[in-house]
């Protein structure tokens, strides 16, 4: 069902930037030089957020100039992702449970994953275009502005219609919460917003790391899609339906399990995958912070290599 997600991305109007002429692409290779040059810190983060806000606001204004078109494309985005869930519902017309999970429980997993991913996609989904900018040399035009490049790339072509995916996920999540047979304790309630925010952070870092990888291999956006769209689709199903190796991979290598599986197991009172200890259900924020830090470093390394090789 990941195909639904891809279709939504290449909606008309997204691909108009083809006219920028390709640069000369003079050299490839690895000139090296020590000294990273720029300072990390709160000033930098504030500058990044300000830049992001300015560019995102510009694109939003431009989108809102054509309200009908915006409404239609948001609806399309909503509908395209909704079929994902319809497929799951159809599956449940044949079976009573999937890996031991009933429909409301699967919907709960689906909702958490879809909302986290939808928010990340809305915020910085356009980063997958970075490879193209590296290839045609237009990244240079971002480097001569007095603003962090990451923020400029993240906000480029900010597209509010992607809110459609978030709304759809929220709707499914709401339905699941209403149908779940769960005794809501304070920790469980608190875990909900924390989980969504952590999931948002983890998916954002996957987007950033994927973009950083595109400094090295400019055609890597499909690989990135496998981890982002592929990842969210994977998380829509219970961990019990997958092989142990795969679950291990998305727990320890690419820690997507912390987006919804582990917190959901706690809320639903289900056994943890891989017999993980109970506290892991609450580890999502830490994992998210670690992921963001790592992907930030990867981004810095990527940009640094670009600035020494110019390719």
């Amino acid at each position, binding site marked *: 069902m990941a195909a639904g997600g891809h279709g939504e991305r290449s909606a008309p109007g997204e691909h*108009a*930037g083809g*006219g*920028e*002429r390709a*640069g*000369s692409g*003079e*050299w*490839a*290779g*690895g*000139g090296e*030089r020590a*000294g990273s*040059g*720029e300072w990390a810190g709160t000033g930098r983060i504030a*500058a990044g957020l300000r*830049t992001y806000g*300015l*560019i995102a606001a*510009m*694109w939003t*204004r*431009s989108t809102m100039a054509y309200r009908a078109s915006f409404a239609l494309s948001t609806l399309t985005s909503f509908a395209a992702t909704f079929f994902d869930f319809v497929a799951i519902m159809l599956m449940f017309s044949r079976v009573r449970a999937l890996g031991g999970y009933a429909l409301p429980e699967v919907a709960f997993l689906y909702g958490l994953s879809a909302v986290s991913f939808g928010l990340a996609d809305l915020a910085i989904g356009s980063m997958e275009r970075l490879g193209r900018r590296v290839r*045609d*040399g*237009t990244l*240079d*035009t971002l*480097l*001569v*502005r*007095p*603003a*962090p490049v990451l923020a400029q790339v993240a906000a480029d*072509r900010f597209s509010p219609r992607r809110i459609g995916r978030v709304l759809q996920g929220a709707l499914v999540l709401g339905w699941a919460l209403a149908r779940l047979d769960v005794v809501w304790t304070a920790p469980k309630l608190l875990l909900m917003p924390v989980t969504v925010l952590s999931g948002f952070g983890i998916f954002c870092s996957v987007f950033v790391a994927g973009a950083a990888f595109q400094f090295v291999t400019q055609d890597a956006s499909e690989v990135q899609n496998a981890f982002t769209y592929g990842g969210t689709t994977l998380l829509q199903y219970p961990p019990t339906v997958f092989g142990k190796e795969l679950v291990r991979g998305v727990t320890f290598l690419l820690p997507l399990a912390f987006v919804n599986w582990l917190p959901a197991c706690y809320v639903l009172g289900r056994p943890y995958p891989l017999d993980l200890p109970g506290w892991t259900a609450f580890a999502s924020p830490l994992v998210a912070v670690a992921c963001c830090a790592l992907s930030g470093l990867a981004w810095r390394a990527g940009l640094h290599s670009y*600035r*020494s*090789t*110019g*390719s």
Partner: protein
Amino acid sequence: MTGEPEAVAGPGALAAPGAPEADFIVLDRVEKVFEVRRKTGFLKRERREVRAVDALSFSVARGEMVGYIGPNGAGKSTTIKMLTGILTPSGGRLRVAGTDPARERRRLAHRIGVVFGQRTTLWWDLPLIDSYRLAHRMYRVPDARYRENLERCVELLELGDLLDVPVRQLSLGQRMRGDIAAALLHDPEVLYLDEPTIGLDVISKAKVRGFLKELNAERGTTVLLTTHDLQDIEQLCSRVMVIDHGRLVYDGALTGLHEAAEGERTLVVDLERELPPVEVPGGRVVRVEGPRQWLAFPAGRSAAPLVAHIAERYPLVDLSVREPDIEEVIARMYAGRGVS
């Protein structure tokens, strides 16, 4: 490498923070080495170092307008990318307005303007005015200053009817004018132009040149421009630097370049009818085709005496003067000097 001026300068240096006026842009033995990997067979790779810029030294004073020319792949763009902080030099020392561009990229960005002839800095799918509004906020230009600069650019570059047009719908000449305006809204002290007239029609070229001339004269903006068009240099720059294979091979006035290259210009004359080659002191006929004849004469000299001489003695119908192109001038330079 020379010592840091901050370290050797006496107390008097406090009067002029940043760069001295004469050394607004300074390059001291700057190098840029790229490593090129090439596949030479199955799993076999050859590594080769390419020196795009090799021990390049020059300085540009504040308010100067300098042409930076050279054949394709000579290292022009690499130099501009190092001066703007896009690329980090592999060696040597480089300062623009007293700062190291690669280390202080974002701080320097407030003080420089950049126009890439072949890729726009404008937001491709949005109306032109959106790019300007964003620059206003991003560069934190005071409102009054922004309005003043925008009005001036709109008037001089004739952008009035284009402000609401999406950038992708602009013609090349319109887009270039739009790009130049975008680079100037924050009052940069130095403007880098990489091939600003490439692909433009005659009228657009004239507009761009006129604007740059006025900018330099009125605001004292330092301008460094790369170009393939010798007329850009002729009409704008009192100084020209020639780079080839990453090295500076000439630095001086344009006329001097012609002399150094022993360059020749060509006078094309159309006579009333077919005639034997004309005889003129200071020129020689290199080609005859029906009533049209081509005369070569030294590029450093004026064409006027030749024209007067011919008009007096021959039935002259029409004439034109052709400039040698940059590749030709540089090729001659090497031939004349006997270097590689």
